[in-house]
């Protein structure tokens, strides 16, 4: 499906950090008992990732798994593989109560890149989460809100973050992030 388009079609912005539409990403919502061995095994088998702990994200190759709630995980994969991931989960969890569904297109993803402290500040202007390095870094995941909309974010590495939100508010999120990253608006709260 080469005509498949993300909500903002590659928009980008340079400010305190670079903010860019990260394009389409495969996403599968998995609801089930995250404490059950069956789910751990299925997730590992399908994604190669360990089941993340509370407010964590695990990654392996193209895939990642994020903790969303005690009974909800988000599996990330290449956009074209989401349906296959759902099918694989269904096979692996045959007979185990769960719900796996492709939500790739319900979301927009943004990539933030740049100075680690500045990047934390951009997020801390919008989300009521502790963005200090002691409290949040690579491997952590926050499902929270950014200004007036739900969102989630994580850091694939120092100086980089990914933000996801619902597709319908992609423009709002882009405007939020670029406003928060406007030149001259650095806070200087997080030491690099």
């Amino acid at each position, binding site marked *: *499906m080469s*005509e*498949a*388009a*993300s*909500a903002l079609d590659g928009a980008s912005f340079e400010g305190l950090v670079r903010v860019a539409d990260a394009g*389409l990403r495969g996403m599968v*919502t998995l*609801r*089930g008992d995250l404490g059950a061995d069956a789910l751990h095994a299925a997730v590992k088998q399908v994604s190669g990732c360990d089941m993340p702990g509370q407010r964590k994200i695990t990654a392996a190759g193209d895939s990642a798994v994020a903790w969303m709630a005690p*009974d909800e995980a988000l599996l990330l994969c290449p*956009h074209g593989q989401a349906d296959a991931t759902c099918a694989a989960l269904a096979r692996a969890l045959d007979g185990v*109560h*769960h*719900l796996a*569904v*492709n*939500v*790739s*297109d*319900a*979301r927009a993803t943004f990539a933030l890149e740049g100075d680690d402290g500045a990047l934390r*500040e951009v997020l*801390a*202007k*919008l*989300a*009521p*989460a*502790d*963005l*200090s390095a*002691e*409290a949040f870094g690579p491997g952590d995941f926050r499902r929270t809100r950014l*200004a*007036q*909309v739900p969102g989630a974010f994580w850091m694939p590495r120092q100086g980089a973050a990914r933000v996801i939100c*619902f*597709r*319908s*508010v*992609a*423009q*709002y999120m882009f*405007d*939020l992030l670029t*406003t*928060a990253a*406007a*030149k*001259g*608006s*650095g*806070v200087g*709260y997080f*030491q690099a």
Partner: protein
Amino acid sequence: MSTRLATGGRLIDRSRLQSFTFNGARMTGFAGDTLASALLANDRMMLGRSFKYHRPRGLVASGAEEPNALVGLGHGARFEPNQRATTTELFDGAQMISQNHWPSLEYDIGAVNQAFARFLPAGFYYKMFLFPRVFWKHVYEPFVRQSAGLGKAPDAETRDADTYEHFYAYTDVLVIGGGVAGLQAALAAGRTGARVLLIEQTPHWGGRAPVDGGEVADQPVDDFVNQCVADLEAMPNVTLRTRCMGAGVYDHGYVLGYERISDHAPGMDGPRHRLWRIRARQVVTATGAIERPLSFAGNDVPGVMLASGLRDYVVNWGVSAGDRTVVVTNNDDAYRTAIALRHAGLEVPVILDARAAGGGALADAARELGIRVENGKGIARVTGSKRVTGVAICAQAGEGAVLEEVPCDAVAMSGGWSPVVHLWSHCGGKLTWDEGSAMFRPDADRAPTGHDGAPFVTACGAANGEFDLAAILKDAHAAGQAAARATGHKPGRKAAPKAQAGEEAPLEPVWLMPQGAGIKLRMKAWLDYQNDVKVSDVQLAAREGYESVEHTKRYTTLGMATDQGKLSNINGLAILSDALGQPIPQTGTTTFRPPYTPISFGAIAGEARGPLFQPIRRTPIHDWHEAQGAYMEPVGQWQRPYCFPQPGESHDDAVAREIRATRDSLGLLDASTLGKLIVKGPDAGRFMDMMYTNMMSTLAVGKCRYGLMCSENGFLMDDGVVARLSDDTWLCHTTTGGAERVHAHMEEFLQTEWWDWQVYVVNVTEQYAQFGVVGPNARKVLEKLGGVDVSKEALAFMQWTEGTLAGVDSRIFRISFSGELSYEIAVPASMGRAFWDRLLTAGKEYGVTPYGTEALHVMRAEKGFIMIGDETDGTVIPQDLGLNWAISKKKDDYIGKRAQARSHMVDPDRWKLVGLETLDGSVLPDGAYAVGEGVNANGQRVVQGRVTSTYHSPTLDRGIAMGLVLHGPDRMGEVLEFPRLDGSVVQARLVDQVWYDKDGDKQNV
């Protein structure tokens, strides 16, 4: 006159001139000036007029407590009224105007009010405006409008040129206030390794200490402050922030900080203000203290200032308020002002010490400088109107007989100090009355408590009632350590630095000067400068029976101005206590509420303005709609096309065209906004039966069913088509904007009532772009796109199928909300636009016509379908709407069933749904009531029904409507009368609400 001194001014940089204007007059100041110090240096003592009597008012203080010096600052898009001159830094090009005067500051007509002051006593508004009523409109209101108000609002058409933002910060210990106490507390906490955030409202560290002097660890306090700042800056776990005020303390360690980033340099890059939304595990308030005025006649004449403020202007900014300053006090601290003035080469004709026994070491020092000190004396009255010209001296113990008149051009007064307990009190910290120092101070045993019941706020330094430098440092050190300890950090053994302690003689409370002042003097003794409340007003309130301090406050308006009574509260309640004959602690204080001083609306709004004011939800086709010039309307947070007017076409005409094209050939609807919830699990069937009034568990895989959802109270809350996707999976469509609400409704029941049922729900609304393909040619266009058999045989009405349509993964529902042959096609949102384009291309030969929400509404109304939010309003049950067919009789239960059996719900007199057909073919007004005979118990006209939906039907070329009518279904053919707003009446006949294709022949082809 007030002027700049030749030398001195620790905060100003005399090499950097800053020019500004005040009421158009050009003046100059220096970098480091506040607006107030710059004005004073230019001999602008009188800055505005008071609220009620329009009396001339000048600077009283040098900080956040200033009640009078409010100015309109800036111009055009940066004009802002009520800017406090004492807390706003001067910048080059500043434009100030004075407030609350007409026609000019110097000559003000409103000042005649003071001639009538005896007719404007406390509670004047309450007493006078009750009657006669006509006076309100013609006399009182114009009077109040003319005389009320401080600054003028910015022009309504300008837009603030600046930006604002929020910032969420987490810290172990937040220290509010950067005086010596705050610095020491931050050091003590920082040394334990705890994360510390120290905020200070001014641009400078050290607070009052550098002005008041003293020695810490054998070095001048100035050096100590610099050393503290250097040490703190070197700690990676400590953040220092000036120009950032602690505005409010709330539950769970939530604190608002108000940072004024560029008020001192307007127009620089970045936000003007930043609202810090701080989560602190422990809060230390080191907010200092505020000096109290003394209540003597004429204490509001420009030139009468707080002793500390007057001293600040000399020491900090090298500005003298006058050449000859009389000092009047009830404590030792004010002697520092006299000494500072004398050191600056200024004259102090006399110090009036209200204490019979006089002062201590500082008094001796003043005498050694040759200053005359009079013990047991006070001020009978101040002479001068726009400017102090002298004081009349009397015995404090007497009734005000004048002993001597002393010419002077400034008065420095001190009635003692009140700890700034605001932030301590915001979240429930209690106070205790300190008899010795005549002040309320924080009661450490009744501190604000957090989620665990343990205290989370500690007050220290002057804010805690400690005024001696050594005691302040000791107290602050302990507070910083205690706060760090409470966050799990271990303080070391390092002790507080030693400071040189000076002995001071005790203060003597003076609430009225002289203590036996008669009514004439009391009527000129001001408590609240901004709201014009005098000693006599509070005494009158007490005589009239106001015993509660909160009631007295509201009756007299004491402390209700923008300064929130920082100077007046304690003096006022002392007067009230005296009038009531009870001790001060029994009277108590009014409530301290955030913010500490006013903060900007911009800071509160943050980024939420313009396009970011509110999130707008856009479908994948949104850009296309806008490019077509669609007229959009909000539906929830979504923006949907109302219609697609062509050039020169009215909205009504566009809607009519869209409907005709759809009914005649082919219409397209962007239905992506419909909510879509997946419900799955072994117990999903019985869960669905509980959620919906219909039987959903028996729905066959591959089929669709229209369902109703009710609240626990039986009222219809949502509707939509449910499709069964597999044995254990259902897809529920909800109304636009209803997905989140319905999802929450489902989760609530799953999590609270049926937590043991195995069901999961996921909201997949935005995964799909969904389109209505509607009209007689709908099938043809889908066949042309190809890939899925959509024939009547393969896909009958109320069935769904999946396949690759036009090369796109699709789920196709054969459902109709218009009465036409109709398909709804769901494709992945990322393919939505591409698929939409394919529909447009393939539909070209059929004159494909996108239609908006209004055409959708009209077509559903022609077909007699109800709309949630039109036919329902939270008080309507499905039975009212004749939807009994959608309510299962076989089920034991569903949400709302029991409620629907209540007597009122089965009352045959409930209004029921009918169609309404106007006799003249016109369109009924929306919401119009059908009137009956007579009046009800309230004397209102009896009504017997109301319009719920009303449109012009282009298909029938007449007005059609639906409504709820008393016994409606039993009265078919009757004609009811609907009054219009203009007084005319429309007649409408009760008819079946299905106007179009009642048998469904068109949708079943």
